[in-house]
């Protein structure tokens, strides 16, 4: 028994190493083969490598990541509220929740972004905040981060993602045994204590993978902000290739950056899952 145990552990470790190696190889192949296949040229990459341009791109990453994080963090409580609202026995709470979720989910995100950008109570007040020193590089970047476009994208993505995740969370809650709620309530816990301490932790654990998937969609969708003047990563690629006439190369670099950001985001889901292993099922390693 012990011998087979050790050998399985070794083979699991071997498989993991092999798996990682294959992924790395795949990534390298893409980085080398795609530029060749699309006829990109090295001299067109060169203008992207200069210091000021790299800094410009780096702050594009910062803008994209900050707006994404804000939307992710704000969407979580909103999604929870909408999911619980939709499950509420009180009609005056349930129907507005259903209405918000269904309407927002069925609209194109771009339309929501346009709409928020045109008129949203807070946006007009925050528009010309101009906190940053316009003469310094950081001042300019700060104002770009606090621009109307950035705010509109953050708000639209918050609402949109909350509506989508509300349904995800609702299915997670519904997948739990009703006995869990009954057990908690029979111990004297209130509705809110039951949700906070017993139901929601389990529901979030169950939907973790699709939840993170929705967040990677959110990160990608920040690029829609480029249309309304939010100078994020995608917009910066466009600005750069209009300067250097190298759209293939500029977009390829930005594509790699998006991939890297979302790959890291995907890793966090694996980390959280490994930290809190599912106690119901042990998934065999293949």
């Amino acid at each position: 028994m012990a011998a087979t145990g050790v050998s399985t552990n070794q083979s699991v470790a071997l498989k993991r190493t092999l798996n990682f190696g294959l992924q790395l190889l795949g990534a390298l192949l893409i980085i080398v083969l795609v530029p060749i296949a699309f006829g990109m040229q090295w001299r067109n990459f060169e203008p992207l490598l200069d210091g000021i341009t790299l800094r410009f791109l780096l702050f594009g990453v910062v803008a994209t990541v900050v707006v994404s994080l804000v939307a992710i963090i704000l969407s979580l409580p909103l999604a929870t509220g909408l999911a619980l609202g939709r499950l509420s026995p009180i009609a005056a709470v349930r129907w507005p929740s259903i209405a918000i979720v269904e309407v927002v989910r069925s609209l194109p995100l771009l339309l929501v972004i346009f709409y928020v950008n045109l008129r949203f109570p807070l946006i007009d007040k925050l528009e010309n905040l101009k906190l940053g020193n316009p003469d310094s590089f950081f001042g300019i970047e700060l104002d770009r981060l606090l621009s109307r476009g950035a705010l509109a994208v953050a708000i639209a993505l918050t609402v949109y993602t909350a509506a989508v995740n509300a349904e995800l969370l609702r299915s997670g809650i519904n997948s739990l045994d009703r006995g869990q709620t009954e057990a908690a309530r029979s111990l004297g816990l209130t509705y809110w204590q039951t949700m906070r301490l017993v139901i929601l932790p389990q529901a979030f654990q169950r939907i973790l993978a699709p939840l993170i998937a929705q967040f990677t969609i959110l990160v990608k969708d920040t690029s829609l902000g480029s249309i309304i003047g939010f100078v994020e990563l995608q917009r910066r690629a466009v600005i750069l290739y209009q300067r250097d006439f190298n759209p293939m190369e500029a977009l390829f670099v930005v594509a790699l950056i998006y991939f890297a950001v979302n790959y890291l985001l995907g890793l966090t889901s694996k980390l959280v899952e490994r930290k809190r292993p599912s106690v119901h099922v042990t998934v065999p390693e293949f």
Partner: protein
Amino acid sequence: MEVTDNMAAVEPLKHTLGEPIIAMEHVVKRFGKLVALSDVSLEVRKGEVLMIVGPSGSGKSTLLRCINHLEVPDGGKVIIDGIDLTAGRTNINKVREEVGMVFQGFELFPNLTVIENVCLAQRVVRKRSKAEAQGIAMDLLKKVGIPEKANNHPAQLSGGQQQRVAIARALAMQPKIMLFDEPTSALDPEMIKEVLDVMLDLAREGMTMVVVSHEMGFARAASNRVIFMDHGSIVEMNEPNELFNNPQHERTKLFLSKILSH
């Protein structure tokens, strides 16, 4: 009469019963058109162990669940320890703190360890300090015989162990009444006894218990009265030996002949 007897060697208990602590008066519960409870009246006294038997769908679980308001009766009164649950503005959570419940499916919280399961309600409902809650939890885990599993997750325990943790979790609130909804039905035969032993200890200590179960051995060893239910009504109520050996109603005879004939 042949009995599936997990408690054969145990002497029947003689309780001194106290004041009535559960009173149900003309309780009615419907699920749509189905009448789950029709005009059920019942009194349970302090320290009494009441067993409820009956075919599936007879309303025995519904009756039990009306006691801690997991089911809201459509009519009649449920009075627990002097508090009328059916009188509108009652704080149901206050009553639930005094009524422990054990479920067929254990319903331990899988995201928490065993000791966290036992501590949770103590901390948030009883507002005990962490040290105090853990002390009480460990005492109870010792009492149910599995202190070594304190830091395991429920999924790492056998069914019998999980059910004993569930009992410890309910007891940690120091309830006045314990409700058991088919506590051994989901267990393998060899685990039933370990759960019944814990329940028997509780009965000996004078805990008021209402038990939905077909464990006839436990009924004989620990219960003061047995109720036979059918179609949402109490058909017959008697001391366990009387009811099992000398049933008065045809439906009771038929039911007992089915469950005791193996």
